[in-house]
């Protein structure tokens, strides 16, 4: 037998080396996929647009999604929103009614022959630093008595007669929720020191103090501001105007922009800003177009709603974008007025956002956009500048919301409907998803941190970081006519992603002031501040 055949070969053959190398390479590829995935998930450029400016933030091509006409079915006589219909408008009327009630019950003063009923007012502190902490702004007096429904002005009395359940909810808020909020703030407030500071620091409002026929025709503040606007500079075409306005709006800080025609049905009928009159007003003739835009929230903080998030970051950014855009249009000689979270609105947001093609109204009553889902805050500029308008879009939100219901399940105040569809929901003649705004507002008044809730906004499966996983899901879902993708993604969302149950977001002892996700480390008071606090999330 030849010697070579009887002696086994030593070492690894080239063939085996190739196979081992290939196996190692395959394992390395799997590891590389994991590393690349981690990197893609953490990438800050996937934060849906707030952190960089430019028209690339509105990255979904809306042309294939456009529809003719509004997605709202008109099922009755349409009209403008009245003051009593809004929780904020009603809040002012309630406070005035309560003050009036208190005055009427007060014993007559010494000038009327009665005993002195009020102590002398304390001398105001000489400097802000002298204000004792107890005198810091709170959520109203500790004990309040809601007057009977017929003790308010005629509009509110009539409203409460028609909707006694809303009177009960308002009463619960004034008599029970607000006093309890004071107690919770006294007990747990220190735990929320950083989020309170984060929320309060965004103040950017510049109140509008003149009516539209004056303020809309004056250039903005700053150097050379306050003069009458120049003669309008003609554009080459409305399409050019539209294109330019959208471009600059993006650079001013708007992640998404659309343009709609004015519809007076969607303007409040009371409290025109700057008019000094709480009563009815006609929509100014120069409000012909509405530029609608949205600015997303900072992702990490909004993800820790409701108790460690804030509305005010996006409020502020949207307001600044609106101020800039208003000034820009005025500098070109066209009257303009901003409507923004910090400067106030004379119109309601949702229908104009829908009409301008930014998104569709979801089950939770707010707008879902293809780019940011519901994670954004809206602002508007009304103007006479002729522009090409956008069409509403349909990317399957109605069908998605019909099946999903995550927002309804997670809502701590049960304000969002579980109904299969919105056929029984009509607001001022328009059919669309609606929520119980009063019970929603009542929960705002219970939550800690930056005031508000925003849970539905962040729990919506459309509100996700803009990385490739969610972009792929969005692309598939909006183009799948069978609904299978919709069902599959909803199942995945509910199966793999977990969050606290609705009642856990309530104050102790019913809940534990839970947050949707852990707050970012930079909003955890204990990580930075040397103060004692009770942590309600741990049952303290």
């Amino acid at each position, binding site marked *: 037998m030849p010697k070579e055949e009887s002696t086994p070969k030593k070492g690894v053959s080239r*063939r085996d080396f190739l196979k081992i190398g290939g196996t190692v390479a395959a394992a*390395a590829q799997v590891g590389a996929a994991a590393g690349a995935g981690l*990197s*893609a*998930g953490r990438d800050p450029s996937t934060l849906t647009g707030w952190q960089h400016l430019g028209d690339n933030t509105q990255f979904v091509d809306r042309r294939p999604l456009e529809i003719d006409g509004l997605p709202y079915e008109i099922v009755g006589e349409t009209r403008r929103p009245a003051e009593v219909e809004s929780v904020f408008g009603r809040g002012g009327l309630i406070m005035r009614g309560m003050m009036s009630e208190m005055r009427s019950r007060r014993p007559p003063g010494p000038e009327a022959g009665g005993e002195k009923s009020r102590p002398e007012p304390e001398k105001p502190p000489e400097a802000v630093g002298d204000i004792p902490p107890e005198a810091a702004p709170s959520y109203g007096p500790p004990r309040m008595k809601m007057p009977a429904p017929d003790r308010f002005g005629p509009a509110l009395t009539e409203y409460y007669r028609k909707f006694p359940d809303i009177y009960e909810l308002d009463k619960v808020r004034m008599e029970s929720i607000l006093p309890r909020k004071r107690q919770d703030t006294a007990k747990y407030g220190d735990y929320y020191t950083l989020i309170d500071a984060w929320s309060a620091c965004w103040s950017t409002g510049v109140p509008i103090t003149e009516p539209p026929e004056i303020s809309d025709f004056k250039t903005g503040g700053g150097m050379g501001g306050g003069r009458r606007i120049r003669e309008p500079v003609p554009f080459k075409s409305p399409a050019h105007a539209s294109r330019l306005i959208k471009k600059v709006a993006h650079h001013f800080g708007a992640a998404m922009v659309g343009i709609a025609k004015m519809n007076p049905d969607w303007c409040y009928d009371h409290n025109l800003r700057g008019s000094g009159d709480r009563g009815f007003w006609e929509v100014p003739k120069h409000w012909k177009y509405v530029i609608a835009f949205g600015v997303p929230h900072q992702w990490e903080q909004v993800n820790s709603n409701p108790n460690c998030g804030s509305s005010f970051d996006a409020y502020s950014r949207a307001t600044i974008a609106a101020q800039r855009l208003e000034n820009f249009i005025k500098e070109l000689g066209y009257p303009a007025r901003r409507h923004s979270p910090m400067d106030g609105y004379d119109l309601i947001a949702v229908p104009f956002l829908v009409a301008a093609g930014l998104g569709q109204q979801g089950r939770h009553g707010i707008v879902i956009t293809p780019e940011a889902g519901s994670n954004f805050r809206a602002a508007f500029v009304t103007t006479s500048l002729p522009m090409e308008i956008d069409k509403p879009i349909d990317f399957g939100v109605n069908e998605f919301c019909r099946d999903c219901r995550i927002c309804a399940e997670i809502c701590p105040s049960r304000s969002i409907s579980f109904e299969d569809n919105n056929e029984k929901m009509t607001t001022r003649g328009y059919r669309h998803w609606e929520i119980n705004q009063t019970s929603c507002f009542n929960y705002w008044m219970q939550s800690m941190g930056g005031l508000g809730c925003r849970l539905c906004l962040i729990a919506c499966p459309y509100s996700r970081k803009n*990385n490739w*996983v969610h972009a792929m899901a969005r692309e598939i879902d909006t183009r799948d006519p069978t609904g299978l993708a919709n069902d599959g993604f909803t199942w995945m969302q509910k199966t793999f992603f977990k969050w606290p149950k609705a009642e856990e977001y309530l104050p102790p002892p019913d809940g534990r002031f839970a947050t949707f996700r852990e707050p970012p480390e930079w909003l955890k008071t204990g990580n930075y501040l040397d103060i004692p606090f009770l942590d309600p999330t741990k049952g303290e």
Partner: protein
Amino acid sequence: MITGTSIFFLIAGALTGLVIPAAAAGARDLGLGMRWWKWLLAGAWYLLLLFFVFMDFTIIGEGEPAAGMKMLLFQGVILIILGVGLVRVLRAGRKRKSS
């Protein structure tokens, strides 16, 4: 992070140049009698593995570690089931050849 750079993806792609000839050599040694459709199935399984891993770690990276791990587990089971089926299909040719 290196994993977010172009050079990383270049290197990761270049590794494919090692995996493919190694797979071919392994299949020959095992006598699997590879045909184009077998390569297609094996390649699809491998791509699915990379896709699932990439997806799940993206979910982990965006701050949802629990969801990412659950998906990894769920998809791991799917991959194992598909892998067992794939091995049977690949080995079927070998049995016929030996008989």
